[in-house]
C-alpha cells in the first residue's frame, strides 16, 4: 500500500511502500511541484531505487529554478539507503531520528 498527498501548506506526505509499482502515482503529484517544499516521510516504511529516482529527478528540476525539496522524518532504514546512495549530498534531511 502506498499513498502520496499534498497538504494545504504544500507539504507532501508519503505513506506505505514506495516501490517500482508506485512510480506513476508519485510522478503525478511530484511533477506538479514548482517551488520549494517539504516531503514528510513519517509514514513511509520503504523505498527502492524507483522512488529515489523520482525524488532525484524532482530535486534536479527544482534546483534549476533555485528551488528545492527538504525531506523530513526518514526512518533509520531509509536513512541508511539515502546514505549509501549519497542522497544526503543532494537533499536537506530535516528532523530525522538518529540511528
Amino acid at each position, binding site marked *: 500500500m502506498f499513498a502520496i498527498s499534498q497538504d494545504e501548506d504544500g507539504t507532501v506526505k508519503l505513506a506505505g511502500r514506495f516501490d*517500482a509499482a508506485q512510480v506513476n502515482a508519485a510522478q503525478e503529484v511530484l511533477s506538479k511541484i514548482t517551488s520549494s517544499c517539504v516531503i514528510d516521510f513519517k509514514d513511509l516504511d520503504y523505498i*527502492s*531505487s524507483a522512488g529515489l*529516482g523520482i525524488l532525484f529527478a524532482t530535486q534536479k528540476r527544482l*534546483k534549476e529554478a533555485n528551488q528545492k525539496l527538504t525531506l523530513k522524518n526518514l526512518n533509520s*532504514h531509509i536513512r*541508511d539507503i539515502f546514505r549509501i546512495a549519497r542522497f544526503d549530498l*543532494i537533499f536537506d534531511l530535516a528532523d530525522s531520528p538518529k540511528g
Partner: protein
Amino acid sequence: MHAERAMAESTERTRMEREITRDLNSLEHITVMLDEFSREHRISDADRFSLALAIEEIITNIIRHQPKNNSAIHVRMNGSVDRVVITIEDPESVFFDPTAAKDPKVDLPIEERKPGGLGIFLTKRVMDEVRYEFHEGTGTTTLVKRLES
C-alpha cells in the same frame, strides 16, 4: 546444554518459494511472502528491509531487460541459522548479468549526477553476496544476506 541448543539451531530452516508473473504489481505478492518468511525466521526489520530492496531491484531489472519473455519468475527464500539465501530464476531468458553493471558516480554534485543505475548498486551494498549464473536459458540471481546476531 549449549551444545544441544547449537545443534537444534543449526538444523532450523525456513523455506518458501513462489512463482510470480512478470509484472510490477507482483512486487506486492513478494512483499507478502517476505513478510511471512521474516516472521517465521525471526528476521530483523533492518534485514527484512535489505532483502525487500534487493529482491525488488533484481525483479524489476529482469522485467525491464527481458521484455519479450512471458515466463513466470521463480523466487525461493531459504533461511538457515546465520543467513538467508534468495534465488530468483528467470527461465527462457537471454544472458543478462546485473552484477556486471558499472557503479554510478554517487559522489558527484546533483548538477553532474546522472539518474539511474542505483538499483544494483544498492543491492550489492545491502547484500553480502550477489551472484548471477546462466545455464540452458535460465538466468539465476542468488542473493546472500548474513543475519544480524
